[in-house]
């Protein structure tokens, strides 16, 4: 990672929380699970913390840490299940769950992680529950849309829709949850939700560019999307797709910035916008 990601201290609290709540399941090596749960970039928790600060939250209490841990666990659970569907070899530099422990145990592991996530979120009130539900529902709908899509070629707007559902919606949930916990009013919460979604689409567009370009250093085998028939915005755009996808990412970030224009210019907001910009311009 080229830059130091924000909220490292808060991310550490999330790592600790995940290690505390990690399930013990026979046949699943603890060293692997600990690494798997703590090795991610923690984009979702960081977005949640920064949104919390930007929306006026000051002190990060247990509720905010739990919310961030919950959303990261949902992401981890979805990765485990996703790796089963995609027959992926590796994840976060480690052997993927299905390769290491087989598909049946991986299914159980994903279930266990989802359960832990919902348990962590159970004290955060109905608004957070509703946001979480939306994020997970969209993720499932996007995944299913991808599965039933017979044609290996995707139209750009289809690809973007799947990106919005599979990836961006949960990022929107992360941002909106931060705003809810900071006790922002409804209009502001909506803005954060939409902000997260825009950032999420940008994030996925850049991810697609990187997938097409391929880069040993991302730890992501190149062209994996093509192999598993996943929609890829850069590929869907054809020709100079990579440049165009990056252009789309920039536009989404601009739109996201506009959404937060009414929010007071605080240090928290500045750091949130910095992360948003980094996420959508990164080279790896």
């Amino acid at each position: 990672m080229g830059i130091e990601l924000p909220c490292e201290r808060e991310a550490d609290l999330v790592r600790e929380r995940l290690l505390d709540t990690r399930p013990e399941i026979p046949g699943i090596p603890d060293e692997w699970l600990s690494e798997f749960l703590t090795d991610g970039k923690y984009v979702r928790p960081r977005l949640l913390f920064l949104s919390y600060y930007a929306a006026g939250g000051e002190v990060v209490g247990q509720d905010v840490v739990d919310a961030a841990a919950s959303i990261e666990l949902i992401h981890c659970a979805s990765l485990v299940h996703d790796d089963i569907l995609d027959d992926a070899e590796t994840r976060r530099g480690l052997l993927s769950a299905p390769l290491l422990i087989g598909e049946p145990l991986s299914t159980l592991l994903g279930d266990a992680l989802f359960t832990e996530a919902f348990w962590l979120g159970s004290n955060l009130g109905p608004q957070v529950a509703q946001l979480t539900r939306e994020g997970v529902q969209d993720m499932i709908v996007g995944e299913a849309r991808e599965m039933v899509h017979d044609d290996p070629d995707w139209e750009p707007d289809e690809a973007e829709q799947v990106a919005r559902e599979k990836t961006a919606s949960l990022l929107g949930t992360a941002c909106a949850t931060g705003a809810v916990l900071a006790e922002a009013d409804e209009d502001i919460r909506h803005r954060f939700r939409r902000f997260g979604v825009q950032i999420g689409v940008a994030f996925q567009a850049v991810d697609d560019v990187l997938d097409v370009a391929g880069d040993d250093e991302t730890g992501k085998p190149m062209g994996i999307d093509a192999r598993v028939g996943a929609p890829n915005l850069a590929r869907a755009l054809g020709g100079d797709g990579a440049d165009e996808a990056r252009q789309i990412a920039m536009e989404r970030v601009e739109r996201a910035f506009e959404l937060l224009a009414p929010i007071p210019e605080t240090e928290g907001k500045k750091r949130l916008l910095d992360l948003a910009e980094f996420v959508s311009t990164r080279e790896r």
Partner: protein
Amino acid sequence: MSSGWLRGETLAAVPSTRPRTDRSVRALAWKILLANHRPSLGLDPWDQLVVTAGGPSDVKRLSLDETVPAEPWTQALGLLAEEIAEDPEQGLARIGRSFVDRWASMYTTLVEHLESRPRRMLELAVDEVVPWFFPDTDLAIEHVDDHRARLRPDRSLPVAFQAGLLEAFVDQIGAEVEVTVDGDRLLVDWSVDAHERPNPLAVLAEATRARFLTATIVPVLVGTALAFAQASLDTLRAGAALGAAAALHLSANLLNDVYDHRRGVDEANLTPTPFSGGSRVIQRGLLGSRRVLALAVGLAVLGGVLGSWLAATTGGSVLGLGVLGVGLGYAYSGDPFRLSHRGLGELAAGLVFGPLIVAGAHAVQVGGLSAQALLVGVPVGALMAALLAVNELPDAPWDERTGKRTLVVRVGEHAPWAIAGLLGLAYLAIVGLVGSGWLAWPALGALATLPLAVHVVRGVREAEGEADELVAYQAAALGLHATTGLLVAVGIAARGVA
């Protein structure tokens, strides 16, 4: 990753691989092979390769620690090596290295723990990791010297693959490494920090933890200042007192390292800081534990000679203080007392680096023990105990695990309050001693460091035991001890000048 590995032209010297059919390999070895090479090879070519080698049809279905016949795996290794490199030997070494990298991704804590300890890493790899993957192997290891080991490669696995494994294991912990063929053996040659190997003087300063010498200098200055204020100062004797105390102090630091090494305390500590966790010269392989012990004995002799001269020319009181000091220094970590393991180390250090040294430095000047000097030593000792407690904070979780129950381990989460108490005692003692006429009033100038004391207490409370964050406050505590002690000494001396 360093470039050195088996050189092609010398490979012929090693007996060729003769796989035996009754050997086995752990299923995880297949999984790692798949994870590392299927993506670049492609799904179908990989499947073909497994079929050709006669390997398991669905690697994913295998439980990771079950064993399967070794021969198909070794076959796959050979086929893969031809696939990924023009020179199959190079391919094999590459497969070996990526194999270890993938293994290490699961054991990052272990690998971090072994940082800069190539010898231990190699032993662990040979004794535990490799035999776990390949249960029938036996890479007989034989240490040549402190940076080389000779291993007998196992005949069931390609030699180049084993060379790659060994190289990657040592490389993982941040050492430069080269594996070469030496007769029918593999020679692993490593060096730690080759480009920035510290010079001997720096190692010495590090081993003795010379930066903590202020702990000795301050009380010697305070005692000497007291004598100076009473109109008698012999600089030679003051120098000898400082030399004796410093030599004994450094010797005790080294002994503590040797003892903690023998009991595994410093080995168990995964969060050393520049101020705690021992000097770690033994753990990092910079000095052997015997050499450290010899150094400790040498310094103790030096301290003893200087101390004996002072005692012979002063009288019984200095001898008594010296013996008590050395005794407490030994009891700090030595058997059977191990005061530091019982939460009494702070008291012992407070006594030695407070009343004892202050009174000793004073006595060698005025020719006898004085109650005033002992009392003036109290605030200095309390500061020392507080400094020690701050330095113990990052070690606390590791000390606790190994049964070293220091003060901060004993009081647990109340540690910041214990430190505040010790610092409070120091300031109260200064005020009380001035009030009762034992200490000259300019010594009140030492109260100027109160804000720094508050800063330290607040900092250690907020750091909540996080080693990274405590470092700044450990440095601040060291400065607090030195500055406050120095102001006391200056205050006393000022009275003598006036």
